[in-house]
């Protein structure tokens, strides 16, 4: 991995070319054209450092963790726990006891739904979410609310795709047990006022879960500055492997919560009469975890921080502004989601052309975009569209790639003329 010079000393073009050189997949072609990967909100590509670290793990220290006294198991355990500390630093948590490895953000949300929310919910209690959540931050709450006879309440979104603090305040009641809100919408790019939402909730004694799945690869995450109770994210959007994610939870909450799943590693002792639980965070990590994934996640976070969110953010801001202007200039194209605070996502529709057809046609030019409801059907309904096309940018994308998308959209227009 090359340590890229800060943006201040490199032109935007040089900076991104150096970043691109770290991602082997960006050299491939698709249907004879250079790959233009604009589906980063679904998953990001992996730098060579991450790919190498995966091979290094399996070729040098592969063993189960927290088990053996042998050299490999000790080394694997060391690396696994070092990665937990890497995650802790990435989100600025106080203690590694507060970092639980999960399969993904979805599993982390479910853990909180079943182990924090469910025992606290009674008939008539409420959980508050927003209208722009991903299905993973809707459905677990629906399930526990239904089981408890509780209500799921939804903060509305305005025409620009924004959430207003006042709407959260208006919907928080004495019955509200938890607020769950995204740090950045995967369908619209909106960045809600999360810090202020947490503050308002805490003034009323309500805990807050923040879904940082989309935000975590675009901007620094600081759980102590946010003051949130829980925060979730997933490794595969952080330029890391699939199958590894994490939950940050305030230690006092995690301590008071029952285990999520039972099995090996999460116990202190087992007998047929009674078992006792391991200490944090192991209480929540039943069974052999994705050891390689967790260890390699640390490499991915090292990679991100070697570039720095200042440079990443500035580059992605430029791409968003450039892409917004480009789409606005195409006749019949309408961007869905124009929040003042947004990042890296261009959701759009085109007059007379279904997004699915857009996706197929631009794919022929090597352009990968997502089309559909983006696991956010309520958002589609709110904006009165069955689906959108979505171009989502990451640090390695270029203005030239957005131009390729623009030309591909002209072809769409020609086909449907």
């Amino acid at each position, binding site marked *: 991995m090359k340590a890229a010079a800060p943006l201040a000393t490199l032109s935007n073009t040089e900076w991104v070319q150096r970043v691109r050189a770290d991602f082997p997949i960006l050299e491939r072609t698709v249907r004879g054209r250079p790959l233009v990967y604009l589906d980063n909100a679904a998953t990001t590509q992996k730098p060579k450092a991450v790919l190498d670290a995966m091979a290094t793990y399996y070729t040098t220290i592969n063993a189960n963790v927290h088990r053996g006294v042998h050299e490999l198991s000790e080394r694997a355990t060391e690396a696994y726990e070092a990665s937990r500390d890497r995650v802790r630093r990435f989100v600025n948590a106080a203690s590694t006891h507060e970092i639980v490895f999960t399969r993904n953000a979805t599993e982390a949300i479910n853990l909180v739904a079943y182990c924090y929310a469910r025992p606290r919910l009674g008939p008539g209690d409420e959980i508050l979410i927003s209208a722009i959540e991903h299905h993973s931050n809707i459905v677990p709450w629906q399930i526990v609310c239904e089981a408890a006879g509780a209500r799921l309440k939804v903060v509305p979104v305005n025409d620009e795709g924004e959430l207003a603090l006042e709407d959260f305040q208006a919907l928080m009641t004495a019955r509200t047990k938890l607020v769950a809100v995204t740090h950045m919408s995967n369908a619209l790019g909106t960045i809600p006022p999360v810090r202020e939402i947490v503050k308002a909730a805490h003034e009323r004694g309500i805990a807050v879960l923040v879904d940082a799945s989309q935000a975590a690869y675009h901007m620094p995450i600081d759980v102590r500055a946010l003051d949130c109770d829980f925060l979730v994210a997933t490794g595969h959007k952080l330029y890391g492997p699939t199958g590894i994610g994490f939950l940050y939870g305030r230690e006092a909450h995690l301590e008071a919560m029952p285990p999520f799943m039972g099995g090996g590693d999460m116990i202190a002792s087992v007998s047929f009469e009674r078992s006792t639980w391991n200490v944090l965070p192991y209480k929540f990590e039943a069974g052999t975890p994705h050891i390689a994934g967790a260890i390699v996640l640390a490499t991915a976070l090292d990679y991100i921080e070697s570039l720095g969110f200042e440079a990443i953010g500035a580059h992605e801001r430029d791409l968003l502004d450039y892409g917004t202007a480009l789409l606005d200039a195409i006749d019949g194209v309408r961007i869905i989601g124009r929040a003042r605070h947004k990042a890296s996502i261009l959701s759009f529709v085109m007059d*007379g*052309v*279904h*997004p*699915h*057809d857009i996706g*197929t*046609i631009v794919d*022929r030019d090597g352009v990968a975009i997502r*089309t*559909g*409801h983006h696991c956010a*059907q309520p958002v*589609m309904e709110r904006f009165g569209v*069955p*689906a959108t096309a979505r171009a989502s940018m990451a640090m390695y994308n270029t203005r030239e790639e957005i131009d390729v998308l623009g030309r591909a959209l002209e072809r769409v227009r020609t*086909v*449907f003329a």
Partner: protein
Amino acid sequence: MSDLNDLYQEVILDHNRRPRNFHALAGASHSAEGYNPLCGDRLTLYLKVVGDRIEDVSFEGAGCAISKASASMMTDALKGRTIDEANALFARFHAMVTTPPDQPVEDLGKLSSLAGVREFPVRVKCASLAWHTLKAAMSNERRASTE
């Protein structure tokens, strides 16, 4: 781009722009909803069956060009057919869109314009949605899904 031209043939674009039989059907004897969760395509199919013959057929909904054109052409092809004939046509259409792209397919007239989806595996569901909905309607199921 020849495969793209195969997919978006003029007849398909025409049925997408001006779908035939695109309305609810008063006095329908059968109806079903079709849904493709992958892309959110949704359609409702209406049949007016008298005896064993499809006297009238129509659809409503929102979807991509392929699913809309396929539904439109299907309704044209079904009018006046018996239930048995409709079932047989379903089987022939299904065979056409699932035959590997390098192999020849039976000529189904206008419906053959949809053979181009074979080059686009994820789009086969778009072309099939209306037909699966037809099956559901004829067997009195309320819903069809491509999943």
